[in-house]
């Protein structure tokens, strides 16, 4: 029952997200809005329930499995990937490395900036 209650709650939030996005033509995917709404609910309730935790942990601990069917779709785009392998490979490898370095750098720089400011004031 725990898992069923939890998964139903997740589906209800996803459904509300999907409907709201379509109703108002919002530029974000339905599940993302569902996630935001669930997060806000948890913040307001100040706790997450046992059933919800069970379902969420169950789904998230097998997150890698969920990517498999989409990844198998690679076989459909084999010729496009072969034709454009160089730009795709470079964009994937360099783009991912750049994203990581820039994100980490921005976070470290902001932390240092914030740590320095009180000292200057004081």
């Amino acid at each position, binding site marked *: 029952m725990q898992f069923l209650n939890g998964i139903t709650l997740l589906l209800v*939030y996803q459904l509300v997200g999907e409907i709201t996005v379509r109703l108002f033509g919002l530029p974000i995917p339905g599940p993302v809005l569902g*996630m935001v709404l669930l997060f806000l609910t948890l913040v307001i309730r100040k706790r997450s329930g046992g059933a919800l935790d069970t379902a969420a942990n169950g789904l998230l601990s097998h997150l*890698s499995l969920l990517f498999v069917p989409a990844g198998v779709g690679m076989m459909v785009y084999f010729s496009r990937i072969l034709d454009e392998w160089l730009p795709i490979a470079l*964009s994937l490898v360099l783009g991912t490395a750049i994203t990581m370095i820039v994100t980490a750098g921005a976070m470290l720089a*902001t932390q240092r900036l914030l740590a320095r400011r009180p000292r200057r004031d004081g």
Partner: protein
Amino acid sequence: MVETDLTKIWVYLSASPLLGLTVTLVAYLAAHRIYMLAHQNPLLNPVITAILMLIAFLKLTGTSYEDYFEGGQFVHFLLGPATVALAVPLYQQFSRLRAVLVPVVVALLIGVVVGALSSITIAWLFGASPETQLSLAPKSVTAPVAMGISEQIGGIPSLTAVLVVVTGILGALMGTRLFALLRIRDDRVKGIAMGVAAHGIGTARAFHVSPEMGAFSGLAMALSAFATSALLPGLVDFLRAIYGGWL
């Protein structure tokens, strides 16, 4: 006699979603076993092993991707509720997030914009078609969200799904090495960078390093899914306005 029986069974199986669903789970469990036996060597990430095994199986049996997906869609569907479920770790880490809220938000916004711009620009520089460039743009976001964004900006959603998976595996492979090279020791910073660049697959890797890195990676993945879906359509319109023809 036996052969015709087998043919009949195959005709039944190839028309039912049961086979696609079962081989997905079997391939994943086998891939996971291999990964564990190899002491979690990131090169043997279970996602890529399972995908390669399934492609080999489909090619050998002459099954089309559409027929396979009849069964695969049941697993694929769970990406939606899994995205919603990200609210739970996000909420559980909320108090730890508050302490570094400003640096996280700044890093996230810069990371998301630079990430999308760099992927589009590199692909463009080396001659990728506009659809491929746009399919690459949301590659660092978790698959269900990335597919939605790709469709919206004019990419190919299923190509994006594949690129997202490969990005995640690359991020999981490169991440810890890159952080060691750059002498980044703070698990919170490593987690945020991992989550922004390599979504769920990177997050799964981050949890192997430390629970703190995993939690911050999951957090970054959830927040960047939101930031990217809010920012990327506008960013692409902006690029179209400046450069005109090439997107």
